[in-house]
């Protein structure tokens, strides 16, 4: 009788919540397609999203981010904060405690030595670690006991959740990578392709730039997960083909980053096999204004440097008029559909840091014209405005990309309407973002008047992102054209506020300063003209359950909760 009741109970549970009570490996195979193929499973050797995210199935950090951008524990027992004593009151150290009883997929215990090793592996000066920024400013990483690790920073760190947090700084096994530090990193092909991890899956086969095969990790900390016994990550092709494989042919269960036009999205959804999902992070497509003169008539070495202010764009009124002429909703409709939304902010998220700046959302062509006239630019005989014999002509550059060329064409039209002559230029993405100091076409050199691209920040703290616009970060011949402040924006008040942000630990206060900084760059000065807040767009089969799209961490962050809808 007892057994029968138990069985009935179990049956009821299965009927009510098939997902929650599933056993490990009962749902068979799941197929994922990343149209950029996976090259390595060691995120410390590659900054490619495809590599980092696929590796996140196998190796995990101490803590990660959930879909709301909150820090959640993974290997750590809890997230250290000032309140629970994990973060020291002076904000210079953070103490992590591992969950007790954690095992690597090979059955050996996870200890604090592995955590210390992971940090040292990345901080090795000869290794060329791609994620070094996450370990920046660390003085020491020490193991206090088998389960406790203390990270001490050189200076107070208001946001201590960089090292060991998020899929870009996972814990690797010290025993496996012992001989792979520094210059030896490249010789460890076997380790890099099949790291031993703590995640829900472990690697069974790896083919470079093609396919990764995995099976459920028998030592995963939750004995009921993952629901899938085996998993394949296939690579290659392009976004449309990946979306087609999920939405139309049903060969795959999940497709990453299916960035295709809203029209094609609609056609594919009609296939009835899958659905598109989207979520918003911090990626903003924007137009950047060049505050220095990029004219080719200036000698090399002075061209586009702060020695020569821009003859047209130095005037705030012109920059503002250019922004006013743009209808951002139309751009969203053309380029991104559901996976985009108009924005006036450089920092559109997390909610606490996003300013309520909505000034730019309404297009105002007449206002823009009036503003230009006020600035002394009057229409010439051919409709193009002139001032002191100079024509209002701008060179507008971006990378080669179908959506960007559409944007260029339509923005050119709007700007022509207010009397601005526009010349368009599109540069191969490899060159444009390549950072080669010898090339005139990099976005850092900015040899044009305005340029368009998208950028975002890592994690949930915008401080390093906003700090890119300080005076000394302007690229110039002296810095080999390296530096993130590509507008050559320079405002001592801004720099002072950045210093203040670095000293502030209290969240509310930080958010306030960050909003202020964001507004200084956008609605106060129109140095950066945000256009579209670009969401992440992926696709999954209707039969795949448990998918929650996360833009703050790996997209595959909760694969252990995925299951097959029967």
């Amino acid at each position, binding site marked *: 009788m007892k057994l029968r009741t138990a069985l009935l109970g179990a049956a009821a549970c299965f009927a009510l919540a098939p997902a929650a009570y599933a056993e490990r490996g009962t749902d068979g195979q799941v197929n994922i*397609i990343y149209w950029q*193929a996976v*090259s*390595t499973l*060691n995120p410390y*050797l*590659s*900054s490619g*999203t495809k590599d980092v995210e696929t590796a996140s199935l196998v190796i995990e950090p101490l803590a990660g981010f959930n879909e709301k951008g909150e820090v959640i524990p993974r290997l750590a027992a809890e997230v250290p904060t000032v309140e629970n004593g994990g973060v020291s009151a002076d904000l210079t150290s953070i103490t992590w405690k591992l969950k007790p009883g954690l095992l690597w997929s090979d059955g050996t215990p996870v200890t604090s030595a592995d955590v210390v090793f992971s940090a040292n592996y990345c901080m090795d*000066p000869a290794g*060329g*670690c*791609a994620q*070094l*920024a996450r370990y*920046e400013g660390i003085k020491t990483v020490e193991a206090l006991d088998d389960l406790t690790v203390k990270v001490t920073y050189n200076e107070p760190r208001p946001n201590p959740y960089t090292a060991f947090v998020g899929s870009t700084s996972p814990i690797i096994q010290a025993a496996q990578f012992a001989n792979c530090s520094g*210059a030896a*990193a*490249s010789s460890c*092909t076997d380790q*890099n*392709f099949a790291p031993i991890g703590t995640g829900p899956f472990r690697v069974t*086969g790896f*083919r*470079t*730039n*093609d*396919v990764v095969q995995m099976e459920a990790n028998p030592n995963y900390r939750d004995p009921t997960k993952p629901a899938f016994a085996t998993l*394949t990550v*296939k*690579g*290659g*092709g392009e976004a449309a*083909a990946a979306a*087609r*494989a999920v939405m*139309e*042919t049903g*060969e*795959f269960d999940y497709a990453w980053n299916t960035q295709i036009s809203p029209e094609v999205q609609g056609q594919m959804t009609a*296939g009835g096999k899958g659905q598109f999902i989207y979520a918003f992070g911090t990626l903003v497509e924007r137009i950047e204004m060049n505050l220095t003169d990029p004219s080719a008539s200036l000698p090399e070495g002075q061209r586009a440097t702060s020695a020569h202010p821009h003859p047209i764009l130095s005037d705030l009124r012109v920059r503002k008029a250019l922004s006013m002429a743009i209808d951002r909703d139309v751009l969203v409709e053309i380029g991104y559909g559901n996976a985009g939304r108009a924005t006036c902010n450089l920092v559109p998220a997390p909610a606490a840091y996003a300013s309520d700046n909505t000034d730019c959302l309404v297009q105002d062509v007449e206002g823009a014209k009036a503003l230009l006239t006020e600035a002394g630019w009057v229409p010439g005989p051919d409709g193009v405005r002139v001032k002191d014999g100079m024509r209002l002509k701008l060179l507008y550059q971006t990378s080669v990309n179908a959506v960007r060329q559409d944007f260029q064409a339509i923005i050119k039209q709007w700007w022509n309407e207010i009397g601005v002559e526009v010349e368009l230029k599109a540069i*191969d*993405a*490899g*060159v444009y*973002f*390549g*950072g*080669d100091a010898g*090339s005139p*076409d990099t976005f850092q050199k900015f040899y044009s008047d305005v340029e368009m691209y998208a*950028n*975002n*920040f*890592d994690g949930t703290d915008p401080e*390093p*992102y906003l700090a890119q616009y300080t005076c000394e970060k302007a690229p110039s011949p002296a810095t080999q054209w*390296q*530096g*993130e402040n590509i507008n050559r924006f320079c405002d001592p008040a801004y720099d002072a506020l950045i210093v203040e942000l670095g000293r502030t630990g209290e969240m509310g206060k930080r958010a306030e300063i960050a909003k202020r900084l964001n507004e200084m760059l956008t609605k106060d000065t129109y140095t950066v003209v945000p256009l579209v807040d670009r969401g992440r767009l992926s696709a999954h089969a209707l039969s795949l359950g448990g998918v929650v799209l996360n833009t703050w961490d790996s997209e595959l962050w909760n694969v252990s909760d995925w299951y097959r809808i029967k």
Partner: protein
Amino acid sequence: MFNFALRRFLIAIPTLLIISLVIFMLLEAAPGDPLGDVPLTVPPDVKEKMRAALGLDSAWYVRYFLWMKQFFWVEPLNLVDYVWGTDYAKGMQRVISFQSRQPVMQIIAERVPQTLTVVGMSYLIGVSIALPIGIYSAYRQYSWFDQIGTLVSMIGFSVPTFFSGVVLIIVFAVKLHWFPSIYDTTHRVTDWASFLKQVRQMAMPVMVLSLYNAAQISRFMRSSMLDNLNQDYVRTARAKGLTERVVVLVHVLRNSLIPVVTVIALGVPTIFGGAIITEQVFKVNGLGQQLITSIHSNDLPMVMTLTFIFAILIVTFNLIADLLYGILDPRIRYD
């Protein structure tokens, strides 16, 4: 003949060295940067360190000679080690891909089988369709068969594979569900059912490529047959009372095949080169797909090694085609 072969072989060595230098300099001069794909969120100083770890901070000639040493010395030693289980190459730096930090030769070895099965199969099928079509089209010149053959080969010539490939996917994979749109490279043929699956997944890429190959070769075959059919010796053969079958398939065909064999031999290196576009469209992980992804990510050692191997193959098959010519055609003698 032997002297000729030896002389050609010796000339090939400086040719290849110059080719390698030209490839290297082209890659060097080409715009782009191996770290171009690194997200903008990575700070410039971290990027600098990554660049140094890839060895990109040394001068071009240092990198060129390092590559030469790795390609001509370390890699052959590794092959020796692999075959005889020795360890001569232990501790020596091999040619390493920037993208995956894996030895380039391992990646190539992993991918050659896929390319050979798919592209090689399509070449075989292409040739075996093209020859009969070419022969019959020429024999019945301007007949309806010839007209249709011309039409089909014009289509095969002029429709690019990225178009025909996608059309096939939409028809056979999306609408009819006959074939998969994505090639499963982990599939193993163990029994009849898995063999059928392999045939199904190869069907579309092979179809696309064989159409293209057949179009080309059938035109060569046809024109070569036409050249010979009007020759005096054909009239003589007929006058002797030989059957049409013997005249066409023995006398004319043998003579017409000489230039066609050369064309086929010269086409063989393209099999190894893979079919960049078709492999990309059907996600076959062959050498062509590797080449294009490596070019996109500026994986210089990978691009350099692959293109150089293609150069070796082209030079080799040119030599083979020349030698075949001498063997097949008694009028051509090299000594």
